[in-house]
């Protein structure tokens, strides 16, 4: 902790509770506040989406974590523009279950192509801010969910005789 060392601001500092001696900072804060207004409450649309997710939450499900996301590791030798049309690939892992997901963008909609490993899940539930939709999973563990609205999404894989597997919410 370096909180008590000598003030290194070039201007005379009078420290009362971390205030003073930082004129540019104060000006910046005032400018940002004038531009954006004070950070307030959650907007109605966000609140509605969060409320839907709260109502649809599955406390009993096995939670996966994102172990791979092509958005996090863009190929270095490719220009960004060349990636625009390329699908996004995600991998979710949990003990005893894994899910590969390919996300393709078509305007405001996404097509999700999933592959569950090991197979056994019978239904993939796609949860969005606007509600859920169910898609059949074939015997090889593959499913396709088309016309998924862009925005927050979470998947629940329903397995006969076992707890469902769920993914974190993420924006697609």
């Amino acid at each position, binding site marked *: 902790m370096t909180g008590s060392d000598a003030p290194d601001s070039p201007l005379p500092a009078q420290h009362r509770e971390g205030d003073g001696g930082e004129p540019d900072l104060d000006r910046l804060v005032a400018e940002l506040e004038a531009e954006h207004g004070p950070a307030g409450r959650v907007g109605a649309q966000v609140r509605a989406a969060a409320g839907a997710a*709260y109502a649809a939450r599955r406390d009993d499900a096995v939670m996966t974590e994102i172990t791979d996301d092509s958005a996090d590791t*863009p190929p270095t030798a490719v220009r960004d523009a060349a990636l625009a049309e390329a699908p996004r690939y995600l991998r979710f892992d949990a003990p005893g279950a894994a899910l590969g997901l390919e996300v393709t963008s078509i305007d405001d909609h996404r097509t999700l192509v999933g592959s569950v490993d090991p197979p056994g899940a019978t239904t993939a539930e796609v949860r969005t801010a606007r509600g859920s939709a169910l898609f059949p999973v074939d015997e090889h563990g593959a499913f396709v969910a088309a016309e998924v609205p862009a925005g927050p999404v979470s998947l629940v894989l329903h397995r006969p005789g076992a707890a469902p597997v769920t993914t974190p919410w*993420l924006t697609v």
Partner: protein
Amino acid sequence: MSLLGVRVADQSYAEVSTGELVKRALCDDDTAWEALMNRFAARVHAVVRSHGLSPHDAQDAEQTVWSNLAEHLSRIRTPESVGPWLATATRRECGRLLRLARRAPPADPERLHAVDHRSPEAAAVAAERDRLVRRAIAALGEPDRTVAVLELHAPRSPAAEIAEFAGLSPAEVPAVRRRVRRRLQRSLAEQGYGHDRGAGRERARDGKAGRAAPAEPAAPDSSAPRRSGTGRQ
């Protein structure tokens, strides 16, 4: 299970600890869930804003973070640590959206963002300032970065709120705040923020328009509305 066999309808949740709110929200207490969101709204919002996402992406980020909190209520090991959990989750989702925005295809005109009424100069100056601020914040490690974001985008947050979000004890907050303010100030000065703005202020004092943008005869702000950005909506 709780001591609350009876729920008092208009009970104030302001006094209830974060951990207790989580427990109640897990028992399908909508009011507790709302209270949890209200408690952290400004802080989550500050982190989102600090990333400079498009309005649409910013909204997606917030929706995703709160949805994730709902899903993780039963999985957060220490319910009292929802604050740092939210700070991390928000930062991560915003980072992801920033990377995705870089590869977003050009949007249809009807899905562009709302009309930007600023003059091109004002918009450019603000964008340059925001880049500079993000660089200054990015140069910090945690918990300083979270404290810096709150300092800029949720100024005058009580020490207890800063502590709960940044994973500090309230006693540590004043020292971290001082350190963060000094570093931000130094970083801003080094990058020339003070210079431009200083000039702008001089002009303002002379009674002219106070922005650092070059003074220009009646910029056609409103007569020529522009659309900006390539995002959705």
